[in-house]
């Protein structure tokens, strides 16, 4: 009798208790399951792979530790091509990254202070390259910069008719067309041009958002004190934009060091990455190691961890630079 009355009570208590306790975990679990499968597992697997050799076509059973354990890293770091791709990556990151901000900040300032009701139109227009598919952009670039029929070379050939421009394409018949998508002198600048065009608008919009958070009172006070527009820009706008500048700079640094899809499509090859690997980035080198001619998963995984360390170091340096340049009065 006692037991029959107690049992349902226990079940009820358990069920409601379980509901209350477990429901939040149940609701949040899809994220953790997805993260474990698509986030955590690849990270752990690539770490194991960085210390292993594996012929991917032969199945997981052929995966084994390398001896010595660091030999994949040794192989990558002593690869002459790795030095080239490292140099390429930094070259492209700096040459395409720095101008983005040098143009975006003044442009955002002009938009904020000078442009009235058309501001939203410009904001949307600047975002168009950012939201367009990389594949579409790279394919259009390929057509525009193709050697013989590309609009750019045809324009340069036409400009040859004018005295000032006649060395643009050396041979008037067009035999000396610039091979934008192959010649080592042009591949990196072309990538930089593409990256600059694609991201400067995005950064401009971010800076514009930052500018809108600066109170007008500060500018009014400055005007009362007789500050010129330049002085206002230099002493008010730039310092107060520092948090946004930190955010956009980190974004540019991480994005440019991981650059892959643009160069993959533009310089699919052969040779992959343009003449003498002139535009091959670490991202493309990693991909080629895994899926290209080398078919070396261990080296590819080691490359990905080297890239991770590089990105981490550069991010820490950027962090330190921004902290050092911070106004002590803000602290």
């Amino acid at each position, binding site marked *: 009798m006692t037991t029959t009355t107690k049992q349902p009570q226990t079940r009820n208590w358990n069920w409601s208790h379980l509901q209350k306790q477990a429901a939040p975990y149940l609701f949040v679990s899809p994220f953790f399951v997805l993260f474990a499968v698509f986030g955590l597992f690849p990270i752990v697997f690539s770490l194991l792979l960085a210390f292993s050799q594996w012929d*991917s*076509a*032969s*199945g997981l059973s052929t995966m084994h530790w390398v001896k010595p354990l660091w030999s994949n890293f040794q192989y990558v770091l002593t690869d002459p091509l790795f030095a080239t791709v490292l140099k390429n990556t930094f070259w492209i990151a700096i040459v395409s990254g720095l101008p983005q901000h040098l143009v975006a900040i003044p442009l955002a300032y002009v938009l904020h202070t000078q442009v009235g009701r058309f501001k939203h139109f410009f904001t949307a227009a600047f975002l168009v390259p950012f939201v367009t598919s990389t594949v579409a952009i790279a394919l259009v670039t390929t057509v525009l910069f*193709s050697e013989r029929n590309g609009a750019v070379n045809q324009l340069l050939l036409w400009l040859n008719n004018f005295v000032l421009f006649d060395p643009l394409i050396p041979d008037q018949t067009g035999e000396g067309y610039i091979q934008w998508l192959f010649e080592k002198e042009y591949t990196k600048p072309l990538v930089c041009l593409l990256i600059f065009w694609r991201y400067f608008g995005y950064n401009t919009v971010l800076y514009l958002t930052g500018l809108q958070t600066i109170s007008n009172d500060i500018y009014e006070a400055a005007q009362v004190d007789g500050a010129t527009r330049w002085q206002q820009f230099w002493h008010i706008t730039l310092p107060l934009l520092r948090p946004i500048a930190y955010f956009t700079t980190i974004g540019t640094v991480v994005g440019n060091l991981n650059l892959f899809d643009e160069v993959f499509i533009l310089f699919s090859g052969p040779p992959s990455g343009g003449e*003498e690997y002139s535009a091959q980035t670490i991202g493309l080198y990693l991909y080629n190691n895994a*899926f*290209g001619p*080398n078919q*070396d998963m261990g080296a590819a995984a080691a490359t990905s961890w080297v890239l991770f360390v590089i990105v981490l170091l550069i991010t820490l340096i950027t962090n330190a630079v921004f902290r050092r340049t911070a106004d002590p009065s803000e602290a």
Partner: protein
Amino acid sequence: MKKALSLIVLLSLGSLSQAATLTVNCYPDVNRSIEAAIPMWKKQHPDVDIRINTLAYPDHHNALTTALATGNGAGDVDCVEIGFVARFGESGGLEDLGKAPYNAKQYQKLVTGYAWAQATNADGGLYVFPVDIAPGTLFYRDDILKKAGVTPAQLSKSWESYIDAGKKIKEKTGAYLLLHANFIALAYIRANIGEGESLFFDAKGQPMLNSPRFVKALQLAKMARDSKLDANLTQFTPDWTDALNKGMLATQPFGAWFEGTMRALIPGTAGKWRAVDLPEKSYATWGGTFLAIPKQSKQKALAWDFIRFYGLNKDVQLNSFKAITALPALKAAQNDALFRKPVDFLGGQVVRPMWVRAANNTRPFDANRYDSVANDALGTAITRVLNSGVDVKTALDEAQALVERRVNRGN
């Protein structure tokens, strides 16, 4: 109740008698060739459907790599291009067709010799079956040659006479000899493989990228570049198609299959092209397709039926040849009257017996799993010689060191 039961039994029987589906994974244009064979297959196997999954050439081989790695996702039959034969053959993920129950070695005499050799691994395993071959040939524009006063014999006598003919063509007509000087190097390397060697490796499996064969190949290419005989174009780009269309290129060294490609690519030039042997009667190969049965296939017997149907049936091979003009590896198909017919696109030239002769004179050599590594290193060496003025020996020594480094690492 009885009615319901009968209906269930009928439906179950229906599903049991449903056609089986054989999956064939391949890349273009082999898919068109297999599609063309389906009606003939259905006559023999009305209860078995063929499903063809086609991916672009690199994507198909990447997908097969992933499928073999994970043990899931491969077709019942998979196409393998010559560049991947050795790697997939050594992977352990494909059935050895030389062993029971397949016993494919009994068919060796029916298939072109060099293609059979390419299909055979260093360990004697036969993990792929050859279906189409690609003997190298030299396509040329008859009208341009006539205008320049150059004979086809001058093109094919030797590599030096080919380059001399190019100088005359450029001078008289303004047309380039060919799209890119690296084609000369690649053709020479493929056509002069020594006894026991493979394309890039010696009998011991060591790379030989700085051997005399490669040195001579790059010297010839440089000779053409220095005389401005190549248009410096990349194959399968709009600029290249445009140059072919406009008669800017007098010759095009390629696999014989390119005749069919030209029909679709540059139909306006029909009747203007002809073909001769490569210079020095160089017998070289330019591609080739093989079929394999992945170990993960659940219908291996049926898959083997399909490979025999597709690769060893003369009518099917001829039907495929009509679809994509890739030459059949099956000798019986090569002897058919169809091969003695004039080719309209080539101005009525009876050219196929020449290609068959070239194919059967090609020296057999093994594929090596590091072929793609060596090919990549060679490509860079050629570029450095042609574009950057680097000395031939220096560029080849660098390429040799790169490949040695990869081979010594293993995996």
